[in-house]
């Protein structure tokens, strides 16, 4: 009941208010977009393994569907609150809008801790959830996806339950399915490739040939690995990569001034993106402390690890030669650091836009589901390129015209698209 705690929804609303101010929205539009269109709150009774019955609270928030069916994940979390779900549903709405895919935004959740539940009980919750909202979700109304502590398995249970209720096959009711069960090829590559598509366009904008650039990457997980791969294909040279060392419980950087060989590094990398430092040394790499990724003399910085990595404390270490930052991670830059970056006129491709490859690929999955025809990987990635490039150009255009910081431009363009759809429909 306390209101002192951090409230994600209030923060999201404040962010929206800022954009609404810039866009000079009328009060009706503001009121509509400040709150979800619809919320479903329900109970999911489950017969537990020990014979008792426990009732779990479930939610689905459909924030706005003016641009198309809602899209958003389902979270299973013991500390879930309706305000968190509202905030995340709102962000989904802007995220689909910024890449201009015809979807709205939603989010759902169940208050539960999977660590205290057996597989059977989890299945009951998953099926119970979909039973409660079966009338209100579907490929043309609202499409759930996996999120915190919800696995592809949980998605398949939900899909199965939905199809049982409706008596038909609707693979598009849920995304994030495994390949072969209605999933799309190219999903693993999508976020990393998406990042580089936008970086490529940004370089064009800056008038720099990508094959003449160098980059330093933070992180060596899924996003970073594919980003480096594509960036190399464009002729770029990654000279340093930071990684997490399981053993030493800290981060290090591997550096090679004439460019790292991603294939070679992957050969000595564990499944969590940790590089074997000794083997790397043998291969002629330098090992530096983890912080060193930010101070490298490169053209491009690609933070692809965690949030809050570029901070007020270390932003000054960014080398004067850095011309562009592409945010592969979620929220890697703190507001204080943002101000410095903006002041130094380093070109920023904000996370919001730069890592939208994932959600775009989910959209493609759904499109393929409704055709019941599946594209080869190249086709998926080709279409992703087109979407990401178009999205980038629009944001860049707006930023130039209205003299906005890229981060603000991306947000404003997204909010405006949603508002416009509401207007076109005559809602406001």
């Amino acid at each position, binding site marked *: 009941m306390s209101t002192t705690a951090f409230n994600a929804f209030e923060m999201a609303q404040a962010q929206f208010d800022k954009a609404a101010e810039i866009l000079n929205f009328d009060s009706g539009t503001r009121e509509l977009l400040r709150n979800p269109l619809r919320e479903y709150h329900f109970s999911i009774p489950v017969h*537990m393994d020990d014979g008792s019955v426990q009732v779990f609270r479930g939610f689905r928030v459909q924030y706005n569907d003016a641009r198309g069916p809602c899209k958003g994940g389902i979270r299973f979390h013991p500390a879930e609150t309706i305000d968190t779900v509202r905030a995340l549903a709102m962000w989904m709405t802007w995220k689909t809008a910024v890449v201009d895919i015809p979807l709205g935004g939603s989010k759902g959740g169940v208050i539960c801790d*999977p660590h*205290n539940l*057996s597989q059977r009980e989890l299945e009951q919750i998953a099926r119970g959830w979909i039973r409660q909202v079966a009338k209100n979700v579907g490929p043309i109304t609202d499409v759930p996806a996996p999120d915190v502590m919800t696995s592809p398995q949980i998605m398949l249970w939900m899909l199965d339950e939905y199809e049982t209720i409706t008596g038909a096959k609707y693979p598009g009711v849920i995304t994030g399915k*495994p390949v072969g069960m209605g999933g799309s090829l190219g999903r693993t590559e999508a976020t990393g490739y998406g990042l580089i598509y936008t970086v490529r366009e940004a370089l064009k904008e800056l008038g720099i040939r990508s094959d003449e650039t160098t980059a330093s990457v933070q992180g060596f997980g899924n996003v970073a690995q594919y980003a480096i791969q594509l960036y190399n294909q464009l002729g770029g040279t990654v000279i340093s990569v930071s990684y997490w060392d399981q*053993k*030493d*419980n800290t981060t290090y950087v591997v550096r090679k001034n004439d460019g790292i060989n991603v294939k070679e590094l992957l050969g000595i990398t564990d*499944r969590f993106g940790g590089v074997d430092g000794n083997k790397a040394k043998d291969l002629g790499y330098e090992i530096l402390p983890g912080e060193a990724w930010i101070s490298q003399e490169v053209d491009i910085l690609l933070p692809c690890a965690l949030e809050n990595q570029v901070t007020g404390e270390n932003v000054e270490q960014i080398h004067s030669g850095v011309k562009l930052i592409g945010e592969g991670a979620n929220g890697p830059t703190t507001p204080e650091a943002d101000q410095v970056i903006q002041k130094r006129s380093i070109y920023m491709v904000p996370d919001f836009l730069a890592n939208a490859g994932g959600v775009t690929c989910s959209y493609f999955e759904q499109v393929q589901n409704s055709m019941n025809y599946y594209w080869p990987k190249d086709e998926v990635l080709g279409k992703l390129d087109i979407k990401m490039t178009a999205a980038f150009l629009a944001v860049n255009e707006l930023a130039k015209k209205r003299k906005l910081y890229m981060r603000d431009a991306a947000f404003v363009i997204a909010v405006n698209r949603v508002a416009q759809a509401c207007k076109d429909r005559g809602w406001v």
Partner: protein
Amino acid sequence: MSTNNNQAERVIGTLQERAKELSCLFRIEEILQDSNQELSHLFESLIQVIPLGWQHTEICQVKIVFQGDEFKSSNYKPTEWILTANLIVNDELVGSLEVSYTEERPMEDEGPFLKEERKLINTLGERIGQFINYQQLRQIYKEVESRKAESHTDSKIVVDLLYHTDPKLYMRIARRLLNYLYKNGVSESQKILQKFIPASYSKIADSDTGDNIPLSHQGEPDIMDLSQEIYNIAYSYTNDQKLLNHLQRWIQEDRANLVIKTLNDPRATLDDIADQLRRFKQIAEKENLELSEPIQRTIIVQLIRALMSSRMGFIHRSKNYLSLEDFHNLFAAIISPTASRGRLGGKGSGMFVASKLLEKQVKTNKELGQIRTPKTYYVTTDGVYNFICYNDLEHVFEQKYKDIEQIRMEYPQLVDIFKNSKFPPDIVDKVSAALDDLADTPLIVRSSSLLEDQLGTAFSGKYRSVFLGNQGTKQERLHALLDAIAEVYASTFAPDPIEYRKERDLLDFNEEMGVMISEVVGERVGDYFLPSFAGVIFSNNEFRWSPRIKREDGLVRLTPGLGTRAVDRLADDYPILVSPGQPDLRVNVTQDEVVRYSPNKLDVINLKTNTFETIDLVDFIKNHGHEFSATDQLISLLRDDRLQQMSLLDLDFEGAHPVATFDKLLNNNKFIPQVRAILATLNDGFGIPVDIEFAVKNDEFYLLQCRPQSYGKARRPAPIPKDVPEEDIIFSANRYITNGHAADIAYIVYVDPERYSQIESKDTLLEVGKVVSKLNTILPKRQFILMGPGRWGSRGDVKLGVSITYSDINNTAMLIEVARKKGNYIPDLSFGTHFFQDLVESEIHYLPLYPDNQDVKFNKRFLNTPRSILHKLLPEYEYLDHVIKVIDVADESRGRVLQVYMNSELDEAIAVLAPPATKVDDSGVQKDFQLKSVSDEHWRWRHRMVEGLARSLDPDKFGVKGLYVFGSTNNGNAGPGSDIDLLVHYDGTGEHEKDLMQWLDGWSGCLDEINYSKTGYRSGGLLDIHLITDDDIRKKRWDASKIGAITDPATELPLTREEAAKEDSE
């Protein structure tokens, strides 16, 4: 020259004597060949021949006395130079053989006689006795034959035979027969009984009360006669066939008496017992002998006492599951010094009994499946003493009374000395024979000490276990095996077990070390030898990762390869944890957790290098997965971000990452039920919780060890104090919490994780462990806590946890492991390891901390105080002042102490600065404290209770118009500390109000007490009463506005009004 001649003459003379003796013996044998001759005739012939065997034949005369009759040489005259031997038949003296000289001759070994002549006369006496016995038996046989012809009954024949051949047995059987007759109400038998012990007998018959005075017992009557009488009564009262059956059984059982006698004899050695048992078994087999239950029990209990343990609990637990056959087999596997009176030791006994118990239950309990034990040889516990004495190492016995630091310092040398010492030749021979049987399969040499079977002192991992590749020539293998035994012996004097014993007052016990030599369970895969998987199983789960798991749901720790990785604490690896009672509630749930926290190494024996090795799991599976029989049981493949069980089509691992999830095994509906059945069987069988080590090879379950599970007392959840000022909180935690309260902590030893990780040199890292060890001896016991990074006392990289063993931290009240940053640290790994068992046993609290999590507190400033007192306590380690902080809590907090409260129900723990505890009930220890299941959600019972409150409230008496509940109890999100908001619509007088509040106060207190027992929370009163009037409702004042509100409306609780009650009843 002349001396040489003399010598030669002497030798020749001696040889001549031998020749004479031999020729005498031959001639006597010749005479004895004729078995038909009369005894008197025989004696005459002997008297002629015997003198030929003696040195001075010419003056030698012979006298034979048999049953009073004398047979002598002619011209016999009594002299003083006599050599005599007894004639014994059937253990009875029947006569004597006497050889004498008629004249004096020079003195030899025994008077004028040679020592060879003494031997000769003894041999002759024996042979003559045998001949007489043979003759007598022949006579009896003839008689029996003739009686058969006279149609005597069978039983009579048997009794006659007995009478003639073994009069003692004849009498013993008569006694049993008498008891039997008396029991069957044959009145004559009573008379005879009275003859045996007249006075006392009648006394017992009269009254059963019996005074506490010994029964008197009068002079022995002629038992032979009485026996005859008893048999006669039996002939007339009992059916012949029946009597014959009884006689036969009694005679057979009588054989067992010898075994019992040996077992009861304190001087009997293991060899004696084994001999008796073997002889008995041969007879039993030949005669198809079956012993009655009580006799079997007696022998088995005695055998348990001799070989395993004389603790009543152990005997009681084991005796029902062992058979004579089991012991017979066991003796074949025992390696003991000559004249040994040693035992198997705790580990050996525990495993033996448990395996037999399971074996016996397998027939009736299908779920148990096949349970095997590896082939094992046992070196008895006195082997170590034997070894020490043989090498004159007795000084090691004083080792245990030395200062622990000195013991630690001297230990490496001691190991060297032991390894360079020799084994007595008889042990070497026996070990060598065992090795021939075991051949060249890899071996494990394990300790099995006398103390290891004590309840509550498990000695987990205290003594050495050594793996041997056992490859090479016989000589090499034998050498390695003996070396390993010496190493195990040396560990008797290692610092860790000695400290452990000291703490438990076991130091003065004369610890003896048995050794088990077992085959390693496993298969050859490439150059490696390993089981499919192995692990430990516990009856009680002392660490529950979910509140739904109960203590008795048990715990299994599984690891691929050898089980060493399950019992050791590992710095950077993750065994699979399962609670057999709740196998579906897993520690790791999300795919990322499952992948990240899965086993990534395995222990194996490398047959090529003949060593124990740790290898990488992924490499192993990629290279050998197709030959390893358990691959599909244990391994899942991570492919395209999706983790799936291996299928038969997964022929290669291209593009896939193998992860040891044990998924197929745990879901095959066989292994977990088997574990459950084993636990249930052993728990029921022994009546105590157990701790098992096992290995599985090709679906075959091998029991490797079984012992009582060490246990700590059940602790109650500590109430978590609320509203503590921020600056008084030192840390808080909300994951993997166990129950308890570490009270009145005066010192904190804090190893700063960041500074520790910055230490470059390995030696300095090890120094940190040494400082902790020293502080452990300086600081007051149980009044300090240890805090530091990573997993303490783990095998592997010292950077990942302070290097200590149990004896270095045994005085701490608490061990707190700090995990900084996100990453690879997950605490539960230690649960179930030997290290953790030690903590549980010593009741040292354990807590993992995640200071980088958002919702916990970690008072870095307090812990990094500049006023650390390390340099005062240990000036020589001042250079580590920045890494190790020793904080005097009182100094830092104006005389207060640290209180650490832990509540697993709430998954919360907090350490606060507070005055010393005065309340007794917070001591945290309460036996048999049973926690209610937490699935009883907090709001649910609150709601039920207020419904009950409403039902029992008399509205008219208190002037209540309506009762509403709102807030957290109403909307279902009440937490453990939530109050219950009640809205009372009230329109009474002031008097009413006072009564009402008093009444509600009572409820409030009771509900608070209930909540306390459920959660450990106490607030002084659980009800939050809001009184409202009609006026409030009209004006919708805040509280009243809840009635009929759109959001979160208050729910009305039905009151019982008298009219309503009446209506109901009509």
